[in-house]
């Protein structure tokens, strides 16, 4: 049974699961302290690419419900293999499983995690010449030929792209201004939600103050902290369950991800016109997910065939119609623009990708300084 777009049950989104599914995964990974170690990560070149030939069933490791079931089914039917699925609910959880030696054929890391996994030699090279549809993402002049997180695009193939902005209820709030200040909206006082996500929350305040979204300078972090604490009187909660908070009527203004918004408006809302989305003018965080093949994958050939299958424009369109996140597959882009026609702010253009507001891989001391600020904001 394929849930068609427009199915009316609230679906647990992977974003919701990111924190909604909680640290259940992370806490499960705790007893296995397998990755308490002291050897420094290496920067050796990745092992060579596999050929795109079926070499067994596909051991698939992704966020829950993060590809159209019809596409997974189509792949199994066409190639006569099974997809053995398991899920993670946070990047930390995914990383812990990989580091503990679990073997997967394909994973779907967020950009900065591609960088980390590559740096540590945990990913196998992916040779575009092996993929019939590689020109759909690696055409001349494509941003993804040399993305910041994977120099020379050696170990990853782009999967989805998205941005973070503000969704709101047009029937409740009329005074939106196109700025991140709208998260301090007076009309929506007590019904504003900020994403329960360290990077996203700090980035929103940093953009408002004109700082880098990755800042870890103590003086800037201090200002960010004050700004975020000043927001708490407007706030109902910190939550990443953005779709459900909006559908349930709890949120009137919600800091949210573009794809989640589009799914909410096009796929769930009884009255789509009651919802709108803006990408604030101070700039918005842009992020992307990628396909990657771990070094110790048992069936890297099948994984290559699978990636190639997902790059077919018709499959990318099926996935977009299910997930509402744009896929940077060339011949599928017009279909997404059509999907996002009513709310162009949800679309992610190539020019958006070239902006500087990406979440970079930071050193531990930087992450910990940022975490300390975020803790104080949430605890105060």
């Amino acid at each position, binding site marked *: 049974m394929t849930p068609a777009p427009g199915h009316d049950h609230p679906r647990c989104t992977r974003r919701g699961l990111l924190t909604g599914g909680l640290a259940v995964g992370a806490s499960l990974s705790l007893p296995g302290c397998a990755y308490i170690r002291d050897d420094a990560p290496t920067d050796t070149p990745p092992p060579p690419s596999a050929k795109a030939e079926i070499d067994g069933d596909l051991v698939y490791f992704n966020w829950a419900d993060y590809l159209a079931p019809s596409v997974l089914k189509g792949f199994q039917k066409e190639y006569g293999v099974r997809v053995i699925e398991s899920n993670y609910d946070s990047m930390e959880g995914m990383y812990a499983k990989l580091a503990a030696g679990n073997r997967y054929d394909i994973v779907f890391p967020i950009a900065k995690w591609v960088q*980390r996994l590559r740096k540590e030699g945990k990913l196998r090279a992916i040779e575009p010449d092996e993929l019939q549809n590689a020109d759909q993402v690696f055409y001349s002049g494509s941003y993804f030929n040399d993305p910041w997180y994977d120099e020379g695009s050696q170990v990853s193939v782009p999967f989805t792209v998205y941005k973070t902005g503000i969704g709101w209820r047009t029937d409740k709030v009329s005074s939106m201004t196109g700025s991140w200040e709208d998260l301090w909206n007076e009309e929506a006082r007590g019904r504003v939600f900020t994403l329960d996500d360290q990077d996203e929350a700090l980035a929103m305040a940093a953009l408002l103050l004109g700082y880098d979204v990755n800042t870890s300078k103590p003086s800037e972090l201090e200002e960010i902290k004050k700004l975020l604490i000043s927001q708490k009187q407007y706030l109902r909660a910190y939550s990443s369950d953005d779709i459900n908070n909006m559908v349930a009527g709890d949120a009137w203004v919600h800091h949210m991800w573009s794809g989640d918004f589009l799914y909410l408006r096009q796929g769930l809302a009884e009255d789509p016109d009651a919802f709108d989305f803006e990408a604030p003018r101070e700039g918005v965080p842009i992020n992307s997910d990628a396909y990657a093949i771990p070094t110790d994958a048992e069936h890297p050939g099948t994984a290559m065939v699978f990636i190639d299958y997902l790059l077919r424009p018709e499959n990318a369109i099926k996935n977009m119609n299910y997930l509402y996140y744009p896929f940077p597959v060339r011949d599928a882009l017009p279909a997404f623009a059509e999907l996002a026609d009513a709310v162009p702010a949800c679309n992610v253009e190539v020019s958006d990708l070239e902006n500087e507001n990406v979440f970079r891989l930071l050193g*531990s001391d930087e992450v*910990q300084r940022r975490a300390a600020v*975020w803790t104080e904001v949430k605890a105060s």
Partner: protein
Amino acid sequence: MVALGPAPAPRRSAQRTWLWGALLAVPTAWMVAFFVISMVIVVLLPFGRTTNDGFPVFSTSLDNYRALWNDVYLELFVRSVLYALATVVLSALIAYPTAYAIALHGGRYKNALIAAVVVPFFASYLIRMYAWKALLSDDGLVNSGLRGSGLGDGIAFLNTPWAVIGGLVYGFVVFMILPIYASLERLDVSLVEAGKDLYHGPVRTFFSVTLPATRYGLYGGALLVFLPALGDFVSAQLLGGAGTYMMGNLVQQQFNEGQNWPLGSAMTVGMMAALTALMVAYLRATSTQARET
């Protein structure tokens, strides 16, 4: 009357002792491997640090234990204790009448009723919290009902301290019901009858006979509810608001986004130390009482 000495204990053969030892070896090894060693790691990791690439490593620094002396953490601890105490009180108010009704008036349906109390708790705590979220949201079932019946404009239940405490009560009340039920089951009904014979009304009989006789069930239940409620992070995360962050959330954050396992472990050890102190105080109080009675 003839004074009865203790019955002579059957002497265990050496063979049987050996058998018991062998049988105990497996669970002991299991406990050592998965409980003691992981505990040791949690206690030692706070002396460590995180490498620049995000790996926790052991070391000899006191920084993480020192970092526990922080106003923000202290405030969260106090808040968590208050929520947990409120949870205990509410759970007792719900659990005692429930257990009482089942134990003393359940008749032949007793076991079925207890099963009816326990079975919903087979469903994952997480799922039950999500269900509450759906139930209590502004456009959820409860508020739609309120609006439909003209009882006002609905109430913003969610994202308040009471929603968090409610979630904790719902999550853990069964741990209070069962021990109280067990102690009521053991209650000698003739004591209650004696109270009535001495011209106590039902209320006074309850407070001077039934309640004191079942207090250990109540204490045990209070402890079983208090401990998980204090460390919980699910309820605050799903039902809480911007100002209901608890200790459990703080610890969880260190292990996830915060990338600071050593600090998270230090917080865990700090919590355990505080809880152990509370436990010891409780055990000493009850054992003194037991000696006095």
